């Protein structure tokens, strides 16, 4: 199965005020292709930075991965457990598989609780987040690079 998903480039009209919020508001969404439940190609072409990815994973306003996953991040207290522990995930899943889960885990499991970190168009989104993805394309790449270090 091979299908591609073209995501609309950011709507032309930048609503006044929206411009000042964050970089993501103005970023054009990267296009990507889903191949058998994976995303083989980098979203940005710029290699991910694992250290930055670790920070993004911790940041409660960004990945907030610790809300749901136990991770090898000992300096942070209180790891959630609604999702599987991520120790060794870099051995279990490939880069392309990890990128798919970061972009939109619902392609793998439509019932999952895990947010889609690179998707827009959800129902009733708070105005200030409307049309924005949770993570930027580069942040997705960074987190993927970090996850790949978890061997």
């Amino acid at each position, binding site marked *: 199965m091979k299908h591609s998903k073209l995501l609309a480039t950011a709507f032309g009209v930048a609503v006044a005020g929206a411009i000042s919020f964050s970089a993501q508001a103005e970023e054009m969404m990267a296009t990507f292709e889903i191949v058998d439940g994976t995303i083989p190609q980098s979203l940005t072409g710029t290699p991910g930075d694992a250290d930055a990815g670790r920070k993004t994973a911790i940041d409660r306003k960004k990945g907030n991965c*610790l*809300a749901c996953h136990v991770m090898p991040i000992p300096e942070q207290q209180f*790891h*959630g457990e609604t999702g599987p522990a991520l120790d060794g995930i870099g051995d279990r899943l490939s880069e392309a598989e990890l990128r798919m889960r970061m972009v939109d885990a619902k392609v793998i499991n439509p019932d999952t*609780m895990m947010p889609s970190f690179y998707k827009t168009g959800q*129902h*009733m*989104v708070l*105005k200030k*987040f409307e049309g924005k993805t949770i993570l930027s394309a580069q942040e997705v790449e960074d987190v993927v690079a970090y996850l790949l270090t978890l061997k």
Partner: protein
Amino acid sequence: MKKLITAAIALSGAGLLLAACVAGGGSSMSSTGENGISDNPDAWSGYKTATAETQAMNDDDFENPVMPYVDLAAGIYNSRDNAGKISCADCHGAPDDATGGRSGIPMKGVGANYPRFNAETGKPINVELQINKCREERQVEKGFKYEGDEMIGMTALVRMQSRGMPVVSKAADPANELHAAWTAGKEFYYQRRGQLDMACSNCHEDHAGDLIRAETLSQGQSNGFPTYRFKWQKPGTLHRRFAGCNKNIRAEAFGRGSDEYLNLETYLAWRGRGLPVEAPSVRK
């Protein structure tokens, strides 16, 4: 807790009777005698996953931080200082008067049987809106602010008269007047929303009992409201909690007392049917 539940069963007869009065129609109460517990054995209250410390505070009326609000409301309950020159007590008797005073409508049982169907509006009415209905129509005064101290205190005062009584809801029955509200509430409950794209069910059904960061997810039941939260540093209404859970997933919240939240409240009462009323509760 066990003891409460047993007492609740003993009291449920009275509760149902009262509910029929309050409904002013009562056609939906055809199932008198059922307490709902056997119907819904897997429901559990957020009390269960609260820390021992929080539970102790919840259980001791001298420690429970909602009690000062209840005291405030008790003063208002007895006051004729309003344009209608009539107090709540004039109509309903003392809050714990099981005969319900002149009106024959006691406060005991209200908390276990709301939301009810309001035939005038064709919508559910919850305890907060019923309080304001009495205030406006009988006392000829402006209603309390939905999230104000008076409203929270009065809701707590009224709902705590039902402590231990099992929550009753027959709204799932297609013949029930609340069924349309129940259906809309259910849709809301399972509808993913917000930038995090989650439904109530993702947290409170699929993952109840699991840790989300430092918090253990409960079933998100409504039987303890109004609730004092340490995070809020004051007690709040159920609709405040709805708005909080909506905003946490970066979804637009609805207004206090909105149709959407009344429907959701109606649905939650059904999810929690059989649980003992635990108002006012204390939570993290």
